[in-house]
């Protein structure tokens, strides 16, 4: 067996001999994938609604019924004045007020237009905006149906039917889940080898390696490959959860996903090595790693779309490998893109992986 073989076995024995690490390896992807998408959800449901029904007609009753059946709203109260409803809103009991003015039914039956008033509490801007949007679309649906059934084709307004491609229900979960799979790789493929090397520095065992004929290539590879395999395992675990729990990746090819995950793992391994080359203590390395990982995660479109960033930071994302990886994952999972479609992203990701590993090997010194 070569030195590499002995070192690889050593890594495995150290890792699996530790009572804590194998548990972390399994719990990390499982908890992250199961808890976070359920908790961190941008979808708006259960918006508390107050209807000020000044019309008190069968039409207003049907509209109220229609709204409460939509599933997005909880009808909290029906008030008879706007003032009372506003009072509820300012106390935080309701999020949105819908006012149906008196004489609505009559006006509709005469084919006149009616102004329906919506007031939303925008302290939680997402909830206010999305709730307002849902409500107005229900109302306009309703009014166009009314017009159609009233046998007055001339008054049927132009209808816009948006079709959301690739994520038809605009589920934030489907946006979020690939991002979490990346977080899993960053943690297992980046943090684990870094901590393992710096621990060897702290314990002085790396010095014992440095006076031995072990080639630095073998020493580094034993860690990168071992933790790379663990990374693939953790990624697979999170992929299975994504698939069976969230129904992700009905379109994508597995090969596309795994090739990109491997390239990214190689990148993270090399990146972790550079960090460990420049830090002497565990504390130092964890903080350095955290600093870069936060930038990787928050500025590359993992959680917020690149297209909604400031222009300068949109350019900045080109130097973050996570940008390419998240793009590949989302495109493959949601759109079913192939290697050919994503050639640019694959090439850029590979360039990052190669360059960072060259830097890692060059900056690791056995002798100084």
């Amino acid at each position, binding site marked *: *067996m070569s*030195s590499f*073989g*002995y*070192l690889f*076995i*050593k890594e495995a*024995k*150290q890792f699996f*001999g*530790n009572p804590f690490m194998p548990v972390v390896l399994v719990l990390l992807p499982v908890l992250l994938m199961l808890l976070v998408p359920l908790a961190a959800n941008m979808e708006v449901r259960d918006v508390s609604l107050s209807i000020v029904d000044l019309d008190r007609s069968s039409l207003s009753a049907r509209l109220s019924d229609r709204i409460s059946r939509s599933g997005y709203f909880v009808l909290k109260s029906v008030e008879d004045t706007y003032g009372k409803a506003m009072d509820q809103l300012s106390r935080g009991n309701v999020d949105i007020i819908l006012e149906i003015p008196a004489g609505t039914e009559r006006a509709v039956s005469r084919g006149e237009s009616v102004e329906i008033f919506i007031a939303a509490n925008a302290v939680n801007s997402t909830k206010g905006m999305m709730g307002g949007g849902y409500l107005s679309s229900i109302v306009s649906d309703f009014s166009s149906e009314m017009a159609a059934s009233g046998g007055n084709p001339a008054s049927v307004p132009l209808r816009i039917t948006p079709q959301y491609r690739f994520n038809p229900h605009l589920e934030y979960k489907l946006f979020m889940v690939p991002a979490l799979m990346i977080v899993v790789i960053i943690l297992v493929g980046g943090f684990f080898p870094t901590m393992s090397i710096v621990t060897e520095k702290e*314990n*002085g*065992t790396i*010095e*014992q*390696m*440095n*006076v*031995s*004929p*072990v080639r630095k290539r073998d020493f580094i590879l034993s860690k990168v490959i071992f933790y790379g395999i663990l990374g693939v395992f953790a990624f697979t675990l999170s992929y299975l959860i994504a698939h069976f729990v969230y129904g992700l990746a009905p379109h994508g090819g597995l090969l596309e996903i795994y090739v990109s995950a491997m390239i990214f793992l190689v990148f993270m391994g090399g990146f972790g090595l550079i960090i460990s080359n420049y830090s002497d203590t565990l504390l130092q390395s964890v903080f350095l790693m955290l600093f870069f990982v936060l930038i990787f995660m928050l500025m590359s479109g993992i959680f917020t779309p690149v297209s909604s960033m400031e222009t300068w930071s949109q350019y900045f994302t080109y130097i973050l490998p996570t940008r390419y990886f998240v793009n590949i994952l989302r495109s493959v999972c949601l759109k079913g893109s192939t290697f050919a479609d994503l050639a640019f992203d694959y090439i850029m990701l590979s360039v990052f992986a190669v360059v960072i590993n060259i830097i890692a090997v060059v900056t690791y010194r*056995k*002798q*100084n």
Partner: protein
Amino acid sequence: MMGNGGDILYRMTHGGRHRDLHEHLVRDPRNVIEVDHLTKKFGDFTAVDDITFDVRKGEIFGFLGANGAGKTTAMKMLTGLSFPTSGTGQVAGYNIWTQSEMIKKRIGYMSQKFALYGDLTVYDNMQLFAGIYGVPRAEADARICNLLERLSLVQEKDSKVGDLPQGWKQKLAFSVSIIHKPEIVFLDEPTGGVDPAARRQFWELIYEAVDEGITAFVTTHYMDEAEYCNRISMMVDGRIGAFDSPAALKKRYGAGSIAEVFDILARGAKRGE
């Protein structure tokens, strides 16, 4: 040489190795280490200042000095852990500037700090180090068995190294450092922090290794241990203050023990402990 228990006892009581009538009992007069004007600077600080010495094959060479005298720094240059600022040297016939990887195959090193994998078992550590030095599998197994018996660690074979008592850890670390039968073993303060009985046992291990033909290069600040060496060099403030056999040094300085010689030399030292 005899290499039996009686010989060891003789050395323990009489100081140093059993010597021939001629001053230097060296089986092979060839030098395994030659150091020529070696200097190491860290910024303005000169840790090792222009040292020149040689180590003969098969001897126990004591590298003495107070804490901070530059012993470890000098040793790191010889073991290929760091480059000198100037000067040159040869270890096992290879240049320390250009052939450090060749040197590393032929030396063993026991660090001042315990540096085996504490989270691996005794057996795993032995197997790992035999493996990375390229000892063939069957041969390694035989040597491991032998070592476990000699160190009375057979029972502890599957214990984690981190859980062993300090004295055992040091004996184990030494045995692992010579598991590949190197030409030279470098021992950096190997007996720090252990009781006198354990220290004596440790020196018996060194003698056994030397009897097998390994040259021992030992740093220490226990002056009584210096008496066990064939030749010693005393470092003071990065320079070599004295360099000879213990007997010759005592004679030259009119001292009763090496500790006295050291006191005389250290009086002029500027770097405190």
